[in-house]
């Protein structure tokens, strides 16, 4: 099923980042249409489209826009989250590099719909090329009178600015990002108040992901219903997915929201299946992180799941894996479910999956993630700051062969104590990620303890 490409339509087009190329592909027609529409009608189309935020949490975009006060005697701001830093995620950078005008057009339409004054695109500091392309697109848009005063005679005055981050994963969290924009250390704020009420410069602010806003021109051009039909229920539109790791063709792929993880990994249209071993045969897959480091890992048996926000949440619970007799029964049960008893599934996250084959050591993977989190914790909350470092040290000792069975239990205890006890969801992410490796691959942890070392090849 080859479908029309929307979000990746620029791939392969020469000079796709210029305004000329974008207009040739129909660019800025949606803006002209939007400026003839009532702002409320635009918000309605976005609601109808079932567009869900593509920064990871999947919050319905139209609903979020509805939280912004209609009247305000201070300016309202749009902030684009282009901080893409979740390990294993690499989609937004492609949009900015190849189709920056799609983002700019989406930002102007959103500004008109929500009565905003200006937009800041917060791009992570390492993305020099992408920032250059977005800035160039903004400059071209000013020259074409698509930005600035009285845009296309509509009376809309709207400015766009690029703001570069400086290397801190936590700035992807929307309130930390706002702090960074204000010139402070990126430390998340307590919510409420939510940014829609008190955001950038204490003004009402909407923070949206790059891919989310890049969808807006097409929604306006073709209508919210059309967009909704391209996905599955409650998850509208085509989506950008990625596959990295041990596959034959790693890359970014656009597909309907209804695509399964299995198709993405195995289909020749996408990643083309696992890489080949020395014997020329495909290697066995051991695990897949479905949507960035924070998403609980899935086993090869769990790949048939549809890649939409709701299916993923209720999928891949570890209840299927058997409790090893050396793990305390109550601790194991507590670790399987949310407080209240609902089984913990995984998450769609950013939709960029990492495939790991049989050569990979899952203890090492968990240790790598724990070190990442320890390094990136902003340090405000004790459970997060100390818990991330503690899990890293325990995992290191298990990997090195000096860990005990008790240490494996300790990992679960630390994770359970971190969750729900922090200012931002980063602490939960550490817990969800690390715990999933213990629950899904307990036998690997056991093997390390019993053999006094790592049984897998080094990478």
């Amino acid at each position, binding site marked *: 099923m080859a479908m029309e490409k929307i979000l990746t339509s620029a791939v392969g087009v020469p000079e796709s980042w210029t305004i000329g190329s974008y207009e040739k592909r129909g660019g800025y027609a949606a803006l002209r249409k939007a400026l003839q529409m009532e702002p409320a009608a635009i918000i309605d189309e976005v609601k109808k489209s079932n567009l869900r935020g593509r920064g990871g949490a999947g919050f319905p975009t139209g609903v979020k826009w509805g939280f912004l006060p209609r009247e305000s005697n201070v300016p309202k701001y749009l902030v684009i989250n282009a901080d893409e830093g979740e390990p294993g995620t690499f989609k937004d950078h492609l949009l900015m590099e190849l189709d920056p005008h799609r983002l700019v057009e989406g930002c102007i339409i959103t500004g008109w719909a929500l009565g905003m004054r200006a937009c800041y695109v917060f791009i992570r500091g390492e993305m020099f090329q992408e920032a250059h392309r977005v800035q160039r697109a903004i400059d071209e848009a000013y020259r074409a009178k698509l930005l600035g005063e009285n845009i296309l005679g509509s009376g809309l005055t709207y400015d766009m600015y690029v703001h*570069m981050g400086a290397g801190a994963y936590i700035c992807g969290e929307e309130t930390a990002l706002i702090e960074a924009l204000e010139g*402070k250390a990126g430390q998340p704020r307590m919510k409420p108040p939510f940014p829609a009420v008190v955001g950038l410069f204490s003004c009402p602010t909407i923070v949206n992901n790059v891919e989310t806003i890049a969808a807006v021109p097409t929604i306006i051009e073709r209508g919210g219903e059309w967009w909704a039909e391209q996905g599955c229920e409650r998850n509208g539109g085509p989506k950008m997915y990625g596959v990295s790791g041990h596959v034959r063709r790693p890359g970014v792929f656009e597909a309907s929201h209804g695509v399964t993880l299995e198709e993405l990994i195995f289909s020749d249209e996408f990643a083309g299946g696992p890489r080949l071993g020395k014997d020329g045969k495909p290697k066995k897959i051991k695990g897949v992180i479905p949507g960035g480091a924070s998403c609980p890992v899935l086993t090869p048996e769990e790949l048939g799941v549809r890649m939409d926000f709701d299916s993923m949440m209720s999928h891949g619970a570890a209840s299927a894996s058997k409790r090893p007799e050396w793990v305390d029964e109550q601790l194991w049960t507590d670790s399987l479910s949310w407080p209240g008893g609902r089984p913990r599934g995984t998450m769609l996250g950013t939709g960029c999956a990492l495939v790991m084959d049989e050569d990979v050591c899952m203890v090492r993977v968990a240790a790598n993630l724990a070190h990442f989190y320890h390094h990136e914790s902003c340090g405000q909350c004790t459970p997060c700051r100390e818990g991330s470092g503690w899990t890293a040290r325990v995992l290191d000792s298990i990997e090195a062969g000096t860990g005990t069975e008790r240490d494996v239990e300790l990992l679960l205890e630390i994770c359970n104590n971190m969750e729900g006890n922090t200012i931002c969801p980063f602490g939960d992410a550490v817990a969800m990620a690390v715990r999933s490796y213990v629950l899904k691959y307990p036998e690997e942890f056991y093997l390390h303890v019993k053999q006094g070392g790592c049984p897998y090849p080094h990478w």
Partner: protein
Amino acid sequence: MTLHFSEQGEQEFQSILGRYPEDHRRAALLPTLHLAQREFGYVSLEAMEYVASRLSLPTSKVLHVATFYTMYNKRPVGRYHLQVCKSISCAVMGAYGLLEYLEARLEVERGETTGDGLFTLSEAECLAACDKGPMLQCNEDYTGCLGARREDGTWPEVDALLDSLRAGRGVPVQG
């Protein structure tokens, strides 16, 4: 105070200020620190003091921010800053091996600069190019597709990269 922005740097500073509301000048801090790093090579304490004075902020606030973010180099770096991503996608594709190979070839440990001042080797976290792992960033360029170390221990793509940089030809165009 002896540090000053160059004429071009001063123009850029003024344009940075223009991006933020007048009563929120502090918002210019991150871009101004980036500018200072470009102008002065790295963000020394003196550079922080200068930035603080230009933005009418206490130096302690600038220090707090400059040390929170990893991209501000608090020490001088070599002409080519090689940053190897060791986050999970790159790790399973051989990032640790790449770090060890570069350490051996450059005769430095991660975090250090070669004696001739040409290369600084650092570890980095995910650079959002995970499909091209193991990923390495050299100053403002991504390398991408460095392949893997061969069974005989050689790594032609990495050698070619170092040769190209040493010869002043920059990062080879990605394949």
